[in-house]
């Protein structure tokens, strides 16, 4: 471990806060992307099924 001397708390807390915020940001964007993709796939399947029913009728 590198020796941070008397400023260890400041340096480590800056890294911890930054990494935590970056993880929250990346997870937030990633999860919303996944949820939206799944919801769109369901909606497109439902729209296709409705169109097929309309064609058969």
């Amino acid at each position: 471990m590198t020796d941070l001397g008397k400023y260890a708390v400041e340096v480590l807390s800056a890294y911890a806060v930054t990494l935590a915020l970056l993880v929250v940001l990346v997870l937030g964007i990633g999860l919303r992307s996944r949820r939206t993709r799944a919801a769109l796939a369901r909606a497109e399947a439902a729209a296709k099924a409705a169109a097929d029913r309309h064609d058969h009728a």
Partner: protein
Amino acid sequence: MSLWEYANPTRFMAATRHLVPVTSALAGICIVAGLIWGFFFTPDDFRMGSTVKIIYLHVPSALLAINAWLMMLVTSLVWLIRRHHVSALAAKAAAPVGLTMTLIALITGAIWGQPMWGTWWVWDPRLTSFLVLFLFYLGYVALWATIEDPDTAADLTSVLCLVGSVFALLSRYAVLFWNQGLHQGASLSLDKEENVADVFYQPLLLSMAGFILLFIALVLIGTRTEIRARRLHVLNLRARAGA
């Protein structure tokens, strides 16, 4: 091939499909390498001690806080002038990334300032303009969230973005406009005398490249998500109308 062809959502989705994993992987590699290099393999500064290691977080995040807003300004202008939906959605996707980068810059700046200046915060021109920029980011994100009609939301947020650009530029140039305050000038300069020492320069560049690539990757993912959400909204409206 014209740049405007990417304003077509289908073309944009096709063009960026392979770009997202590449930029994400490069961002991860550059950030990890830059931070490990800077944290473990650079010496302490003779005046700032080990706090100089905060530079690898503070400078890249501050750089992106300002430039994310300027990117939003360009895409907002494209929306206002040419009414391309992808540009408005790209601005919307960039806002949370810029907001987070501004918050990181403010927090790491305060943590760095406390031992160096003896205070967490001072109403210095650069710090104050950065705080106002942060508030503009919050307002921008809130405005998108509160207006239901996407075109109206894009119009109003674009106007807000134009106004906020004054503070984005002030955040960058406040030190030059008002020669007062505690914050130093630019860390990276073409003037060798003003630039950071070479030993800190290379890991800093690597970290900055990583943050820029992360921004690009997240904006691409976010824009693709917004395009899908828009399509989902249209399908839901059609389903409701047909029911």
